[in-house]
C-alpha cells in the first residue's frame, strides 16, 4: 500500500498529461449542441445586476426579434477577452442581453466601464440558478434566442474574433 502511494504523484501527473495532450491535439469546436437547443428558454426573472440596466426575465427575450444572451462574470478573465467581440456584434446591430453570475453591482459597473458595454438588459444571478437552468456550468457562454424565446444556438467559452461570423449567421438564421 505504502509503495503504491509513492507512485500516486506520477499517476496524477500522467493523467494531467493525457488531458492536456488531448486538448492540444484535438480540433477546437466551440459550439456544442446543448440539450436545450430548439427548446424554449426556461422561465426566470432576475433583478438588475448593474445601475443603468434593467433586469432580465424570460419574457424579455420573446420580443419577436432574435437576440443574444451572454452569460458572464466581471471576475471572469475570458469574459474580458471576448468583450471587443461583443461590442463588434452590437455594432452590427445584434441586440445582446446578459446574465451576470455570482457578481456585485459595483463590479459589473466597473467591468462595463472598462471593457465597454454591449448589453441592453442584465440580470443578476447570484447563485447561478438561471445559469444551471440553461445547462451552462461556467462562463462565458452565449446563446442565440429567436423572437419566440426559443434557443437556437449555443457558444461555449469566449467568443474569439474568428467566431463572430458564425454567431452573426446563427442570429440571421433565427430571424
Amino acid at each position, binding site marked *: 500500500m*505504502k*509503495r503504491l502511494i*509513492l*507512485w500516486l*504523484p*506520477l499517476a496524477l*501527473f*500522467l493523467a*494531467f*498529461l493525457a*488531458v*492536456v*495532450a*488531448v*486538448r*492540444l*491535439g484535438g480540433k477546437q469546436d*466551440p459550439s*456544442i449542441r446543448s440539450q436545450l437547443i430548439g427548446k424554449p428558454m426556461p422561465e426566470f426573472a432576475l433583478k438588475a445586476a448593474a445601475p443603468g440596466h434593467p433586469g432580465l426575465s424570460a419574457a424579455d427575450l420573446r420580443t419577436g426579434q432574435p437576440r443574444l444572451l451572454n452569460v458572464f*462574470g466581471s*471576475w*471572469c*478573465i*475570458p*469574459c*474580458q*477577452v471576448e468583450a471587443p467581440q461583443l461590442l463588434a456584434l452590437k455594432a452590427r446591430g445584434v441586440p445582446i442581453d446578459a446574465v451576470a453570475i*455570482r457578481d456585485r453591482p*459595483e463590479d459589473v*459597473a*466597473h467591468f462595463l*466601464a*472598462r471593457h465597454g458595454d454591449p448589453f441592453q438588459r442584465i440580470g443578476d444571478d447570484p447563485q447561478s440558478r438561471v445559469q444551471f437552468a440553461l445547462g451552462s*456550468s*461556467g*462562463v*462565458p*457562454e452565449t446563446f442565440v434566442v429567436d423572437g419566440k424565446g426559443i434557443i437556437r444556438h449555443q457558444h*461555449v*467559452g*469566449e467568443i474569439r474574433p474568428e467566431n463572430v461570423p458564425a454567431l452573426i449567421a446563427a442570429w440571421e438564421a433565427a430571424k
Partner: protein
Amino acid sequence: MIAETGLAALWLAAAMSLLQLAFGMAALRPAGAELLRAVRPVAVAQALLVGLAFLLLIQLFLRTDLSVLLVATNSHSAKPWLYKFAGAWGNHEGSMLLWVAVLAAAGAAVALFERRLPERTLVATLTAQAAIGLGFYAFLLFASNPFERLFPVPPEGKGLNPLLQDPGLAFHPPTLYVGYVGISVAFSFAVGALVTRDVGPAFARAMRPWVLAAWIFLTLGITAGSYWAYYELGWGGWWFWDPVENASLMPWLAATALLHSVSVLATRDGLRAWTVMLAVVAFSMSMVGTFLVRSGILTSVHSFAVDPQRGAFILALLALYIGGALALFGLRVGTVKEGATFEPVSREGALVANNLLLSAILGIVLVGTLYPLLVEAVGGGKLSVGAPYFNAAAGPLALVLVLIMGAGPLLRWRRDRLGEVARRLLAPIAILALAAGAVFALAPGIRILPLLGLVLAFGIGAASLAPLWKRNLRRTPLFTWGMVISHLGIAVSLGGMASEAAFTKEVLVAARPGETVQVGPYQIRFDGVEPVAGPNWTAIEAKLTASRGGSPFVLRPQARTFSSPPTQTSEAHIATRLDGQLYTVIGPEDGGGRWQLRLWWKPFVTLIWLGGGLVALGGLLALIGRVRRGGRKARGGEADA
C-alpha cells in the same frame, strides 16, 4: 553580425550542456571518478555562453535592428530606451532565452559556491540541471529562435504592447524568472540526492540557502507583479486569479512549504520523502506554469504569441522531466529510510500542519487554474472559474495557516505541552481579543473574511514578534530575525488585504468640469481635461484637485492612445498617503460634455506590498544568517544549534 554571434553562442551553450550531461553521467559510474572535477567548469562555461547570447539580444533591441524578426515584431525605433532594453524579454522568444540564461546561471552558481554537498551528489545535481537545460536549448533553437533574420527588412517595427510599456517590465519579469527558474536548483538537488540515495540533514542544510534565494526572488516578483497589475490595469484590484498570476503563485506556495519542511529535515532529520517530493513539485509548478501560459490552452489577459506546436514541444519536455523525476521518486524514495519521529504538539507538528495547508491551497489553485481543461476533458466545453471560487476555497485555509504561523515558532522541537504553549501565547491572544472588540465596535457591518483577516493581522503580528521576547536581541541569530520579520510581513500584508476588502470606498460618476465628488474622506474637484502627448502616445489628461482638510493636491489620470500598435490604455494616477491610497482613473466622454471618472479611496492598501517586501527581507536575513553560519561551520567553528 550580432544576431549570428548570438545564435552561435546559444548553440555553443547547448553543446556545453550536452557535455555537462555526458561528463556527469560518466562521472557517476564507478570507473568515472576522475571526471568528477570536470563537471563544475563546464557548468560555468555554459552559463557564460548563454549569458553572452542574452546580452547580444539586448544589444539588438537597443539598436532596433529591424533585420531581426523578433525586434521587428516587438520593437519600434521611437520607443524610449528603457523599453527597448526591457522589450528584449517582453515577448515569447526573448523571455525563453532569459529563462534558459537564469537556469544556466543557477547551475553555475551551484558549481561555483556549493561546498557542503558530497561531490557525487553535487555532480548528480549538475547533471540533472544540464538535462533540463538541454531540452530548453532545443526548444529555443528549433522552435523559438530569437535571432531569426527577416528579409526584406521592414522600414519600421510593430511596437511593444503598450500595457508592457512601463518601468515595471524592466524589473518584474527578470526578478520573477530568477525565482521561478532558480527553484530548479531544488529540483536538481532532489534528483541528485535520489540518484545517490543521500537524503538527510546534510543534504537539507546544503539545499536550504538555494531554496531561500529562489524564494526571495519569487516573493519579490509576485509582490511587484501584484502592484504592477494594480496600477497598470487601472481596475483597482491587486490580484485577479489570472492563469499567469497563478503560475507564479503555485511555485511560491510549493517553495514556501519546502522552506519549512527542509527545516524539519535539517534540524530533526524528519520528513525526508516529503521534502524531496516538494522540491520536485516546486519546479514542476514553474514548468507547468510556463507551459500553460505559452501554449495558449488557457485564456489569460497576459497574451503571448500562441502556437500549438510550441505547446507540444514544452509538453514533451514536461513529460520527460517531471515524469522522470516522479518515476525516480517512486523507485528510489522507498529505499530512503524515514528519519526521526515526533509528537503532534511540537514545532515539527506545526510545520507539518503548515505543509499540509500550503499543499491544500496549492491544490485548490491548481484545480481552479486547470478547471477549464478538466471540464473540457469530460466534454463540457471551455469554461472558467474566477475569484468567487478561489477566495471561497483558499481564503479560509489561508486564515488557518496564518493562525498556525503565529503559534508554530513558539513551540519546542520534538514535544511540547499545550498548557505551556498557551502561556507563551497569552499576550498575542489578548491583543487578538482586543482587536476583535475594536473591529466590532468601529466597523459593525463588516463581512466575515475581512473581519477575520483584520483580527488575525493584529494578533498574529504580535505573535510573530513573540520569539524575540526576553531574548538578548544582539545575540539572536540572524535567521531567527529573518523568520520573525517574514512572519510579521505576512501579518502586515494580511492586514492590508483585509482593510482593502472591508473599507474601500469607490465612486463611478459621469462628471462635468467644475463638479465635486466625495470619495471616503476626500473632496475631489474635477477641473477639466486637456490633451497631452508622449514619445509614442497621445492622451486625454484629467485634472483633479483633492483635499481633506489640509492643503489640496492635484491628480492627473490619463486615457492614452498609443500609435504603434494602436491601442488605448488608462493610466491611473495614485496618490499615496500614510493611511492609504487615492486611486483615480478617467474613462471616455459620454458625448454630452461629461467624463466618466472612477475614484477609489483604499485605506492601508499599501500594507499588502509592504508586507510582501518584509517577507522577502526576512528571507534575505535568513539567507545571510544561514550562509554565514555554514561558512563558519565549514571552517570548524561553532556547531549548528
